């Protein structure tokens, strides 16, 4: 039973971490680009 628990924990926790990392990375980049555009707009 401990093998099943280990396998499922690794599977779901890895998915959770990988998905959260991907989503957050995308959102941070989007925010940075918006910020850069705003700063460019102000300097023009």
């Amino acid at each position, binding site marked *: 039973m401990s093998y*099943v628990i280990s396998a499922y924990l690794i599977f779901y926790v890895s*998915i959770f971490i990988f998905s*959260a990392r991907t989503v957050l990375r995308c959102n941070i980049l989007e925010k940075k680009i918006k910020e850069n555009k705003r700063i460019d707009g102000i300097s023009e």
Partner: protein
Amino acid sequence: MSVLVLFIFLMLIFSFVFLFKIEKGLNRWLGLMSVGSFAWALYSIFYVAKLDRFQSAPQKIFYIHVPSAWISFFAFFLVFIFSVKYLFSGRTKDDLLANSFAEVGVFFNTLVLITGPIWARPIWGVWWTWDARLTTSLILWLLYVGYLMLRSYVDEFERRARLSAILGIFAFLNVPIVHYSVLWWRTLHPAPVVIRSGGMADLPISMHIALWSSCLSVLLLFIFLVRKRFNIGELLNKF
């Protein structure tokens, strides 16, 4: 076991709320559908699917190991398609898509290589053996890790895209070898048990429900992750 299921359900509820708050449009619905289907798959694996007569509980690993393997093969097939497309068209979009499929494919292939030995230990008595299926699977993983490393080492866009497209095409040649390895050589790994040349295998309906639910959840997550990874690629190009 119920503590494990409860813990994963709590994680899924958290993911549901997180995605609902942070995502918009199609990505939000894809993410939420993926989380919902993971919850249903988990329920069907532990409360619908019958316990295997010979392997007992460790057989439950089958429901995460097999869908992960299938989706990684599918991802590598798409890397192959978009690598060929890039070499003909030279479009940035094709290169970005190939990269997105490769990254998500490597992630699922890593899960295959982790869950496989955990399943093998109680059934075969060993974590790892150098038989044809396991060795070719490891080579496949190394090839695509090499693909991702190549992309991170080459700075010039066109050179990086061209070289990785060539590697993406050659690396795919190993996928049929991995698939047929259990038929070509005598291996400890079992031959295909779900889809055979004569049609579907004689699995109980409850096992089919659990397996295909798990496949659906993995597929939805795969689409969601590839879309997000593609967005990241596009955003990085704007910098």
